[in-house]
């Protein structure tokens, strides 16, 4: 149904680009520590960093109640809730009762499930950097852009906050920031990639649950890991977002899950919301006049 795109990077006009890169998030070794969330916020200087004298000084009371935002959700150990403009990584925690023989055990035959049946799934979610990226398709200003690494980023100096991308994303990843109105999401640490560094989340991840690298290598590693788990009896292990033939042409950020995607809050069969839009963009020449006006306006603002 979807026109296969052999090389989204070349199609985006990059000559001799580097290898397409991505994330392979192996949730079977995620310990839910949230280092990815913190490392991401620290590197990208996401809001929430306390500055000024908002809470502590020698004379101020330190016992004020926490702001409403800082409240326990009651959803296991997840107090982040979802991906958003200020949370580009989100660790989901799913507590399950599972049938005997289907517990946490990945190695022992006589595993804990015999007597317990508790399973605690943890998974770090992130922007999928789709091969067919609806956000990119719908963006009228060119703020969303395919990079030379094949990733999809929002250019904050272009974005005018129209939010078309927010509703277009099949995963609900993109979000507008309350204060500046612009759309924000994971850039796969584009600035770090340009400097030859791996993204902050993947670098921090203690157990290498988040792996970064050339997409081809990640796919091979994921296939091998899946075999390993299947051999160990973890029959429900599966890859998610790795298939280039799926509704988004495969994700550059894909996952190894231990249960159905819905369990993790992921759509089971994501489809690029702009299937028919691609054809429209072939009229790029015709649209150029309109686009130009918008672009110039944005440029003018950004250069002040």
């Amino acid at each position, binding site marked *: 149904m979807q026109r296969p795109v052999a090389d989204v990077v070349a199609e985006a006009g990059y000559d001799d680009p580097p290898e397409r890169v991505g994330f392979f998030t192996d949730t079977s070794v995620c310990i839910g520590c949230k280092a990815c969330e*913190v490392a991401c916020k620290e590197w990208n200087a996401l809001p929430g960093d306390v500055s000024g004298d908002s809470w502590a000084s020698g004379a101020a009371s330190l016992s004020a109640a926490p702001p409403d935002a800082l409240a326990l959700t009651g959803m296991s150990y997840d107090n982040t809730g979802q991906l958003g403009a200020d949370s580009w990584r989100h660790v989901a925690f799913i507590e399950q009762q599972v049938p005997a023989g289907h517990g946490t055990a990945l190695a022992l035959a006589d595993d804990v499930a015999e007597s317990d049946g508790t399973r605690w799934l943890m998974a770090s979610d992130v922007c999928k950097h789709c091969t067919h990226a609806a956000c990119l398709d719908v963006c009228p200003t060119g703020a969303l852009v395919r*990079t030379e690494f094949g990733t999809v980023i929002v250019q904050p100096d272009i974005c005018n906050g129209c939010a078309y991308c927010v509703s277009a994303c099949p995963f609900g990843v993109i979000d507008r920031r309350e204060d500046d109105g612009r759309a924000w999401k994971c850039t796969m640490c584009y600035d770090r990639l340009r*400097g030859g560094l791996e993204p902050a989340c993947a*670098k*921090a991840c203690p157990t290498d649950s988040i792996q970064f690298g050339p997409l081809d290598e990640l796919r091979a590693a994921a296939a091998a890991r899946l075999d390993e788990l299947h051999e160990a009896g973890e029959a429900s292990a599966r890859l998610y977002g790795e298939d280039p033939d799926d509704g988004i042409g495969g994700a550059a950020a894909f996952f190894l899950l231990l249960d159905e995607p819905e369990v993790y809050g992921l759509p089971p069969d994501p489809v690029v919301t702009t299937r028919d839009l691609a054809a429209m963009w072939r009229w790029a020449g015709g649209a150029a006049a309109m686009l130009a006006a918008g672009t110039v306006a944005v440029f003018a603002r950004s250069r002040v």
Partner: protein
Amino acid sequence: MRSWITSWPVYRQLTGGDPLGRGAAVRSPHTDDAAPRTEQADRVVGSVCPYCAVGCGQRVYVSQVNGTDTVTQIEGDPDSPVSRGRLCPKGAASRQLVTHAGRQTKVLYRRPNGSEWESLGLDQAMDMIADRVIKVRQETWQESDQGKQVRRTLGIASLGGATLDNEENYLIKKLWTALGAIQIENQARI
């Protein structure tokens, strides 16, 4: 002028290899300029995470910001055989630990029965503490206990050390012991 025009996205879109305007043609200056801020650091210093005792390696990046030395990033040291560059959420928050606005940077003083903090100079505070240590030591000095020499004071106690450097613990133990203070304790007992 010409360079401005050639960098104009629509010009690039119509003339380059990105006719759909999704990539090279619509890159913004912010995107073109992107580079890791750590490349701009004035210095990079080898350090160790201050939280638990695993001892993960850290690299501390320092730059001048508004004329002041500022830690702009702390991340894992990939060379460390202990941690191989990885950090937990606390370690990953280390930059905030050392830069956050809640850090108290001035000496504070609360007088007996007082209801508020007052400000106090560091040197004056040090003088006052030195006077108090000497006074308590003299007043509570114990030369012997049940006929046996003990040469000590039970009037001064100290708690802390597990978050401090070995060199600091060494000076704490050395000075307090010479002063005769023996109730010197730290988290290892807690």
